[in-house]
């Protein structure tokens, strides 16, 4: 316990030392949340395994580490970020690059796309579009009992802001590339806000990369508002080195008849924890959450999904799949919560896992909490190995065992990949997964760090 409070104290001090620098780039409205959030963080602290939603994830190795400095970008950093090129060929997207949680340009911080869409820096937007920020900022991630969300609210540096006005459909996806690169170990926290108004549509791709071998810890919060009849897809591709810790919290608030999907694909990373919250806040809303994790060595991947059915006749679907190799550990915690009045709910949840070695470990916790009666809910979870019969079938047709195993694993993973609607990305993901399964992708595709 002592260690606990001492640890919280350290982050509190980090806040105290840097708050001036953080606040001066941000708008007063965003700053107005910081004091209260750090207080709440002080009460809740860093989640431990005693916290039910972190039961299978030990954050100690990252949070016990002392991150002395708080990163502030300088001009030379920007140049390096500019050099970065996405290696997904054929992917036609509006790109945004974030470096260590900052928006690494000085001039072009906010861009307007056709149809009146704005993409760019959250800090910049909060100065320019005060009322839009005030309507949505910290509204969807507020009441959570997770100390790390509060820590983010207190210390958030910068992040992405996307605004899609009513009736606008953006065909081309927006791609956000999160880079982390630093000479010393850093802890970065960015915060994004995406507002999709009525009858609009947008696809967001988030790619996470590490560029230097130092220890990183990222604690990111993304808030999404999906208006009536709107369509929103978020695809997260995580490819970081073994010494990186990545904690993401995504809160998707959905209005009536909206459709939102989230897809977390974890290819590589030291410690990854993705929490995704879908709040179905209007009749007829649909939500889909997908996840795929391929982990080996000492990696740990934890997916937490919380789907809340607050209104009648909503549909939700969860599909999470994982392949665990070497000493990797995985965790899945899915929760479907159906409120009293949410009649006509349909909610499904599925988690399948394959363990490849005796040292790999999987913990899964699919939960249903249902307070309405006219519902159809189901969940299923399996932990096992590749199907011997299927393996035999392929071998009997002259495919060697290694190849047959690969095919089966690829097929297993493809069930998640096929839900990516952006074709170029889908193909690239299939490709990456295949490489990953073959063991060729022992390090991140674009990484100079040979941590593999």
């Amino acid at each position, binding site marked *: 316990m002592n260690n606990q409070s001492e640890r919280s104290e350290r982050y509190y001090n980090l806040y105290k030392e840097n708050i001036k620098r953080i606040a001066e780039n941000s708008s007063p409205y965003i700053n107005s949340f910081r004091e209260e959030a750090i207080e709440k963080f002080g009460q809740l602290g860093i989640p431990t395994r005693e916290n*039910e939603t972190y039961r*299978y994830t030990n954050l100690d190795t990252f949070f016990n580490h002392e991150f002395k400095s708080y990163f502030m970008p300088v001009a030379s950093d920007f140049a390096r970020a500019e050099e970065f090129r996405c290696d997904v060929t054929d992917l036609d997207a509006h790109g945004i690059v974030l470096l260590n949680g900052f928006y690494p340009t000085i001039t072009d911080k906010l861009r307007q796309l056709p149809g009146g869409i704005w993409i760019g820096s959250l800090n910049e937007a909060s100065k320019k579009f005060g009322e839009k920020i005030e309507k949505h900022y910290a509204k969807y991630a507020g009441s959570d009992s997770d100390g790390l969300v509060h820590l983010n609210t207190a210390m958030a540096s910068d992040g992405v802001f996307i605004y899609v006005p009513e009736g606008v459909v953006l065909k081309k996806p927006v791609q956000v590339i999160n880079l982390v690169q630093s000479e010393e170990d850093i802890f970065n926290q960015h915060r994004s806000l995406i507002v999709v108004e009525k009858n609009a549509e947008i696809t967001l791709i988030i790619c996470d990369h590490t560029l230097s071998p130092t220890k990183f810890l990222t604690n990111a919060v993304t808030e999404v508002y999906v208006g009536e009849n709107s369509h929103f897809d978020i695809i997260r591709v995580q490819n970081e080195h073994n010494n990186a810790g990545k904690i993401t919290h995504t809160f998707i608030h959905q209005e009536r008849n909206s459709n939102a999907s989230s897809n977390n694909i974890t290819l590589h990373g030291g410690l990854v924890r993705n929490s995704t919250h879908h709040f179905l806040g209007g009749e007829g809303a649909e939500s889909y959450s997908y996840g795929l994790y391929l982990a080996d060595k000492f990696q740990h991947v934890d997916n937490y999904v919380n789907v809340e059915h607050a209104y009648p006749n909503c549909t939700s679907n969860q599909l999470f799949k994982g392949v665990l190799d070497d000493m990797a550990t995985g965790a899945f915690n899915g929760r479907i919560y159906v409120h*009293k009045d949410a*009649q006509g709910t349909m909610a499904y949840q599925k988690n399948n*896992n394959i*363990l*490849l*070695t*005796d040292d*790999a*470990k*999987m*913990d*899964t*916790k*699919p*939960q*249903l*909490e*249902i*307070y*309405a*009666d*006219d*519902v*159809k*809910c*189901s*969940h*299923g*979870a*399996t*932990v*096992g*190995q590749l199907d011997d019969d299927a393996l035999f079938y392929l071998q009997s047709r002259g495919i060697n065992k290694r190849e047959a195993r690969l095919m089966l694993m690829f097929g297993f993973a493809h069930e998640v990949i096929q839900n990516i609607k952006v074709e170029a990305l889908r193909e690239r993901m299939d490709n990456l997964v295949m490489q990953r399964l073959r063991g060729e992708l022992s390090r991140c595709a674009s990484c100079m760090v040979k941590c593999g």
Partner: protein
Amino acid sequence: MEKDQDKIINDVTSGEYKYGFYSDIETERIPKGLNEDIIRTISRKKGEPDWLLEFRLKSFRHWQTMKMPGWANLKIPPINYQDIIYYAAPKQKASAENLDDIDPELKKTFDKLGIPLEEQKHLTGVAVDAVMDSVSVKTTFKEILAESGIIFCSFSDAVKEYPDLVKRYMGTVVPYTDNFFATLNSAVFSDGSFCYIPKGVRCPMELLTYFRINSANTGQFERTLLVADEESYVSYLEGCTAPMRDENQLHAAIVEIIVENNAEVKYSTVQNWYPGDKEGKGGIFNFVTKRGLCRGENSKISWTQIETGSAITWKYPSCILRGDNSTGEFYSVAVTNHHQQADTGTKMIHIGKNTKSTIVSKGISAGQGQNSYRGLVKVLKNATGARNFSQCDSLLLGDKCGAHTFPYIEVDNQTAIVEHEATTSKIGEDQIFYCNQRGISTEDAVGLIVNGYAREVINKLPMEFAVEAQKLLQISLEGSVG
């Protein structure tokens, strides 16, 4: 039309709990409260040896450092542990060897409950240990069982007559530090059953322990210890009822089972404690720790439970599958109606090689009942070839009830295959319509559908109990339609 329906419902629900009577039996009680003196008093009254008193005191001291757990999905009103009488015994001669020695009022009580204290009566195939409040009243068929070497007696007798056996096994499966209620039980436990099946013996009859709470303001804390030695088999039943009262009464029991090589234990419970009235007033708090250890190879434990009673149920009969090739089974039907709450499930810990477990849980929620399944399937590193299949279904009747599922699956071995499936749905309107069409009333149709839904579990019960359980299900759900 609506009025008619209300009337029918009223008629039915008023007669819902038929075991709610109170018998006026002369009872010896100790003062309310919980402290070391009380524990010494209990121990003295039971004439216990020093080692047992030490065990109790050790538990009590540990209990004082513990806090009531809050993780269950239950709303438990605060319990004042100083406001409970921890020992109440019907006054009678020390041991009733002869049936005539038993207080006739007491005999009448058990007759009313359908539990024969006379031997050679209609339930001839069942040996009964009847426990009223804190003591065992009578154990039947002791002699016949003794012929094949089976020990079946009250826990207090076992402490006196077989101290070595009790000492060797007590607390090995549920240690005194296990959890809040188990520790409390270890400190104040009153009576219960002890059963030992020697090597190679197949128990010729069903063993039944019947628990009855009679006294007001008392808590019941019994402890059951069941040991099945190599190559043996026993089928063990447990039933329980209590009078209707406005206040809540606490029942915190421990059941320990130890199964050696090639032995098998079948443990069935029909739990029908008083569930409280329609407004949720009164009823028993049923906080029970049940755990079995498959110590030997090829051993098997099968838990079957029908949970229809109790205001709050907090119960997780578990299996520790330590022996290679051992098997654990858990079949459960839990019903919550009116304001009842249940948080129940199982734990299957796979330690040995090729261990298998099956979980079938059927939850039924009606009225404002809240029903949770909470289960753990854990496969340890060396449990090669472990296999688990879990299925937990929930049925919802009415729009104010809830059904929740909290499964935990922890797998640490690549050869394990663990499957979990769960569904939650409303009772099928088309099924009810189909029955209505054929002249079956909605009430009966629901009974029919629920019984069909629970059949898989009920079939696992011994015959007499299965019939009882079916009736009980129907009674518990009466008044829930409309």
